[in-house]
């Protein structure tokens, strides 16, 4: 595969769930690319479709009768959404890996940590049992788990949260996948451990050249790590640009609201949070999903949903205010 082709191209991805209340639109026409060794952040509030997007990329959803995926997820040139579960079993863990929010519940409590890491190369690379175990220990050393040989023999409940997250990262990287999806990898961890785990992810990205999708609600985490950031609101990307321009010149009112909601000790006065609640995904408002909470909303915003368009060099925004500037 050529270097300049994105490793992952998400094109018009929509995810819908049939629920008792109606059709829940969790992800709404989302498109973005991830280049090899790029780190892209997906930011948004709880329930904005971050995790659903990441699971759709691994086709972990879409298998039940009430889950509907549409659009394309092109991974290494092939559409993931057209793959069977059997084909996906080969791709997951080998080419794609997932780190989830809660390390404490991510591992099976009844199996040794080493066993669970060794399982990955055993399945995907048909490595013999003994070699897989050695590989597991090596991976634990890579993620800087002290006395790895001994720790591999322990069970998940004997680990702290931070150590477990290291184990899960070790597991994710054991087959050197090209894409790692880190779904709120540090949310459940203490701040000090958070920094260590982020640094570890960054170091490993450099070492293995893995492309990473980092899903978070924490703009601070994004500021420390990502190359590119996509801001997700109610299942749609409202703004996507490089980290630098996002923090320097945010253009979507929602992004600005998010940035203003970060406590800043240098500024006096009260925080300025975004008023209102995220919309009900079953009954999305007509027009721009953000308009009921947007102080700058125009009449047009209530009628038609703005497209995500390039407004300047690599800065895509979905907002009617941008049009009125032009």
């Amino acid at each position, binding site marked *: 595969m050529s270097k300049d082709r994105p490793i992952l191209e998400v094109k018009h991805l929509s995810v819908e769930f049939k629920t008792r209340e109606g059709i829940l639109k969790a992800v709404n026409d989302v498109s973005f690319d991830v280049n090899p060794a790029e780190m892209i952040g997906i930011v948004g509030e709880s329930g904005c479709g971050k995790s659903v997007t990441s699971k759709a990329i691994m086709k972990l959803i879409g298998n039940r009768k009430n889950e509907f995926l549409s659009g394309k997820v092109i991974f290494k040139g092939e559409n993931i959404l057209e793959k069977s579960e059997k084909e996906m*079993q080969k791709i997951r863990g080998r080419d794609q890996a997932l780190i989830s929010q809660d390390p404490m519940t991510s591992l099976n409590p009844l199996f040794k940590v080493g066993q669970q890491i060794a399982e990955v190369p055993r399945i995907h690379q048909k490595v013999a049992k003994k070699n897989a175990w050695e590989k597991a220990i090596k991976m634990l050393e890579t993620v800087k788990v002290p006395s790895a040989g001994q720790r591999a023999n322990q*069970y998940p409940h004997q680990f702290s949260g931070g150590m477990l997250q290291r184990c899960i990262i070790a597991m994710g990287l054991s087959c050197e996948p090209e894409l790692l999806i880190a779904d709120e990898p540090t949310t459940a961890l203490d701040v000090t451990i958070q920094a260590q785990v982020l640094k570890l992810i960054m170091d490993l990205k450099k070492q293995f050249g893995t492309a990473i999708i980092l899903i978070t609600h924490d703009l601070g985490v994004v500021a420390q790590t990502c190359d590119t950031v996509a801001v997700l609101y109610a299942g749609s990307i409202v703004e996507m640009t490089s980290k630098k321009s996002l923090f320097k010149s945010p253009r979507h009112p929602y992004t600005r609201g998010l940035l203003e909601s970060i406590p800043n000790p240098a500024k006096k006065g009260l925080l300025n949070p975004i008023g209102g609640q995220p919309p009900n995904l079953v009954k999305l408002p007509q027009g721009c999903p953000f308009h009921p909470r947007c102080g700058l909303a125009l009449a047009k915003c209530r009628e038609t949903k703005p497209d995500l368009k390039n407004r300047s060099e690599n800065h895509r925004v979905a907002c009617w205010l941008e049009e009125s500037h032009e």
Partner: protein
Amino acid sequence: MVKYAIKRLLWAVPILFGISVISFFVIRLVPGDTVTAILGAHYNEEQAVFLRTKMGLDRSIVYQYLIWIKGVIQGDFGFSAFTHKPVLDSILERLPITLELAFISLVTAVLIGIPMGALAAVRRNSLIDNFASIWGMLGVSIPNFWLATLLILVVSLNLGLLPSGNFIPLGESLEGNIRHMILPGLALGGAVSAVVMRMTRSAMIEVLDQNYIEMARARGIRKNQILFRHALKNALIPIFTVLGIQAGYLLGGSVIIEQVFSLPGIGRLSLQAITNRDYVLLQGTILFVAGGFVMINLLVDILYAFIDPRIKL
């Protein structure tokens, strides 16, 4: 672990003591006594008084209990006036049959209940799941004596596939032994399989919703591996708990099933003891069954620790 087992065994002592007291006194609430049963139609007051004095039944009930429990502690369960044998001998002679019946019923229950429950959990609301829930309802609501009679009627009498009763010792003929045990095992294990199935289904549904199952999928682990290695092992703890409790049902249910299939086990022995007012024999069988129940549940608790490393005994 050893310490825990010893502790639990010591706990069994007061439990069994309580059971011995209750069984001893409750039996004596039943009208008539050993002597009326021995004499039967030839009852006359003079002989009755003579026999009662001879057997010590004229002494106070507390005294009688103390004499009996003293013997039990020394390993002497008394001598039955009916079987003309020491109680312990009768019990040990019959015990293997009941144990075999309970074992076969348990295996039946596990072999039917666990796979069916697991499948029902994986394919929720499918045909299999509906069948399983019907099975679950029928299994717990059909009385075992009715099921036993039905099995005899259909399988033995109409189809002539299996014998309707009697027992052939293992040493005599393995095939004969098993052929005679299949129907009693099904009749007794059927209900347990329903309970095990329901527990397996609900435990599996809960486990399959856990984060580590989704994470296992995200690692590319095959579906069957996830189901039978990752999920089922986690579901085993509640299943074993249910099995331990059901062991009591199996031991108790053997009273009826052994009667229906004419199996000379402990259950039938205790039924005889009841009709004969054979106090010592009945007390002995009750203590043995209760002891067995306590031991099985101790075993289950020790098994927990083998399944789940978080459980420290």
